[in-house]
């Protein structure tokens, strides 16, 4: 009896010891094999671990098998793709880097706080490795893109090679607009109001403008139409005019036209263009499902809708005065600072972004099982419950990426026009490399963000009086410390401009 108790106690002590061991081990992770990785000649078989953010598709096993067979053949490598689901990514993604887990590569993005994580030492610097191990990819990167991936003097990410655009505009139901006799593009507020009035009369069951709990984006469109650009995607209440010689940042409430904007919003709200309960509505697919007629969003959302519902003839009215690329770190790939095979990971990335066969195997899956191609090389997903496309959006390149069958021709022509229009280093394009460092103003930004949600959103949806509401919003932003934020933004923007020479 006594012995058994002793044994039980011993087991527990050992279990404790193991736990303590785990804690200590994490800090030294990665350094153990540092010696052997320095020269990677591809002779050793390596399994890479990659994290992406999305829900794991049912058909992933088949896709992995096919991809690994190909990779084994081409570069003696296999890959394990781990998925962080949408329901938990906000908590789990930062934990990837703080837990000390050993993995090689991960999807990252501006919306996953790339710059913030990089500044806090989550990723491996790639200054020397990127040109050496992924030379073809490196050669294709634009100067702007590399600049965006550089934080505190080091390259921390491999940016995407598929340009995306800052364009915002009205995605609207073309079939209904034709019924209303509005055949020209709807791309001004007057036209939106006219279309809205018609909809209210003839299709009262529909919401005119798609608004939900994720918040209104009309003030962004208003500013973009006036040629102003936001300081970054997290702070869409601070703008500047990139066409000025020395742009001055300003708070939304200091725009002299903003009073008119809120009057207009109030009028739209009174007319019932959106629900009085919109901020509690968690349904974000109302336009897509035919419950709303207009949504302010980007061109990719529009192209997605056109494929889903060709019968509704979705149209896109561009409401941005000037076209520029979104930061290329909008989608990017990072190497974890715990990676044991960063060289092989970059070699894999080089192959993935230059080889159509590997790209198709990762991005679309298995030909004939998960997707098929038509004569023009456009893809169709065979069973979206099985597998649609990869969540490693950063792997897309302009050359290798395929259009989905059914995307209207205008999607390509419009983008080609934009590419012609954009001049490197001119107008907004000059500033897309700017990344705000929030280290010194975290407190103020958190408070301003809260003020925007609490006072800005209801004001923009016309729930509060346009005059009093604006005064209150301004007051709350000032209390939250927006003046310090503005000062810091101005300082960093000036420094950025000076660095361009």
């Amino acid at each position, binding site marked *: 009896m006594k012995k058994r108790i002793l044994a039980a106690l011993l087991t527990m002590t050992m279990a404790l010891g193991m736990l303590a061991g785990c804690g200590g081990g994490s800090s030294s992770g990665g350094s153990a094999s540092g010696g052997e990785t320095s020269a990677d000649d591809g002779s050793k078989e390596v399994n890479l671990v990659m994290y992406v953010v999305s829900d794991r598709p049912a058909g992933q096993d088949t896709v992995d098998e096919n991809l690994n067979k190909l990779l084994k053949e081409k570069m003696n490598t296999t890959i394990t793709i781990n998925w962080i689901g949408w329901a938990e990514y906000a908590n789990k993604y930062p934990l990837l880097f703080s837990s000390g887990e050993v993995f090689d590569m991960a999807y990252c993005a501006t919306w996953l706080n790339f710059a913030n994580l990089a500044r806090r030492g989550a990723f491996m610097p790639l200054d020397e490795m990127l040109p050496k191990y992924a030379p073809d990819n490196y050669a294709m990167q634009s100067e702007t893109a590399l600049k965006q991936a550089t934080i505190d003097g080091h390259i921390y990410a491999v940016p995407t090679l598929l340009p995306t655009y800052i364009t915002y505009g009205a995605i609207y139901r073309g079939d209904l607009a034709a019924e209303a006799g509005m055949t020209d593009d709807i791309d001004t507020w007057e036209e939106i109001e006219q279309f809205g009035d018609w909809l209210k009369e003839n299709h009262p069951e529909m919401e005119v403008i798609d608004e939900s709990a994720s918040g209104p984006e009309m003030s962004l469109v208003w500013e973009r139409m006036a040629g102003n650009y936001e300081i970054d995607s997290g702070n869409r209440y601070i703008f500047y005019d990139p066409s000025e010689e020395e742009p001055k940042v300003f708070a939304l409430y200091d725009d002299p036209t903003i009073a008119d904007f809120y009057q207009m919003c109030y009028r739209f709200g009174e007319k019932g263009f959106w629900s009085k309960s919109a901020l509690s509505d968690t349904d974000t697919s109302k336009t897509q499902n035919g419950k709303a007629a207009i949504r302010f969003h980007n061109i990719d959302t529009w192209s997605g809708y056109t494929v889903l519902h060709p019968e509704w003839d979705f149209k896109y009215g561009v409401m941005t005065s000037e076209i520029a690329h979104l930061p290329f770190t909008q989608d990017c790939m990072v190497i974890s600072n715990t990676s044991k095979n960063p060289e092989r990971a970059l070699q894999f990335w080089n192959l993935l972004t230059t080889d159509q066969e590997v790209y198709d195997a990762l991005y679309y899956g298995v030909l004939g099982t998960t997707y098929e191609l038509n004569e023009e090389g456009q893809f169709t997903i065979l069973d979206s419950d099985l597998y649609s496309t990869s969540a490693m959006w950063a792997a897309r390149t302009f050359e290798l990426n395929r259009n989905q069958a059914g995307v209207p021709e205008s999607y390509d022509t419009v983008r080609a026009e934009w590419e012609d229009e954009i001049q490197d280093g001119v107008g907004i394009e000059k500033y897309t490399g700017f990344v705000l460092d929030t280290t010194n103003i975290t407190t103020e*930004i958190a408070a301003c963000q809260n003020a925007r949600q609490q006072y800005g959103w209801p004001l923009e949806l016309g729930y509060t009086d346009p005059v009093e509401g604006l005064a209150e919003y301004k007051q709350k932003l000032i209390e939250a410390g927006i003046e310090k934020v503005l000062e810091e933004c101005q300082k960093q923007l000036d420094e950025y401009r000076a660095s361009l020479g």
Partner: protein
Amino acid sequence: MQHFRNFAEEFKKNKALFAMAAPAFILVFVMQYIPMTGLILAFKSYRFDLGVFGSKFNGLDNFRYLFASGTGWLITRNTILYNLLNLITSQLLAVIIAIFITEINRMWFKKLTQSIILLPYFISWVVVGVFVYNLFNYETGMLNGILKALGRDPINMYGIPAAWPFIICAFNAWKWTGYNSVIYIAAITGVDGEINEAAAIDGATIFQRIRYITLPSIRPTLVTMILLQVGRILRGDFEMFYQIIGNNGQLFNATDVIDTYVFRSLLTNPDIGMTAAATFYQSVLCFVIIMVVNAIVKRIDEEYALF
């Protein structure tokens, strides 16, 4: 030294008891005490490559955002008031229902009632959030549907923050009462039936029996339940608030609790140090409150105190 000798003697005498307590002790130590070292992050500017212990201290910087623009006071007040209100309503209703259920004689009716009351406990807040939206939606909600059918003007509930403390309290009670009443039913069943019978023979009415027999006999349970709840008085039920209120800024002044404010503020720009600071703040205040309340209870009647 004297203490240690006493302990050693005690250990020798009750080895079996110590062995039995060991798993629980170790579990609490590993799961509750070791993670507490993480609180140190509240005073640090965290970096992934430096880790928990290597990161630099930054004083009280992480706490500043909680109190920026006066929100700290508002959300602390809201959290405490909501918890107090919920504590009183859900416990009170639970006691009343427990008494009703035990007084019901027909077995099948008793079981049926109990099951129905317990049911909401199994419904997740996500689903409740959908209920609430569909009840109070201005254009298509059920409430306004009824009002319109009666020829009255519709009410914009999302424009009246003052109504929400009551709505939230009602849903909280609806969800928790059944679950809490189970504990009271157990306590009442434990009362010796003969006392009740004797009282009945002596001519006590049903109300007198409840007042003088049932209620006093469940008093220890009630006090313990309340003390346990008071210990969490600064922890807002995040899921409930987030699912019912969500991003609706119009209602924040009346419904924002510490947990939802922290979540929203840091969602776009997460910082583990600032979250740790909020937890630290809540824990310290909780600790103070539970110590004070326990001391008061102890003064009134030592037997009821938690420790």
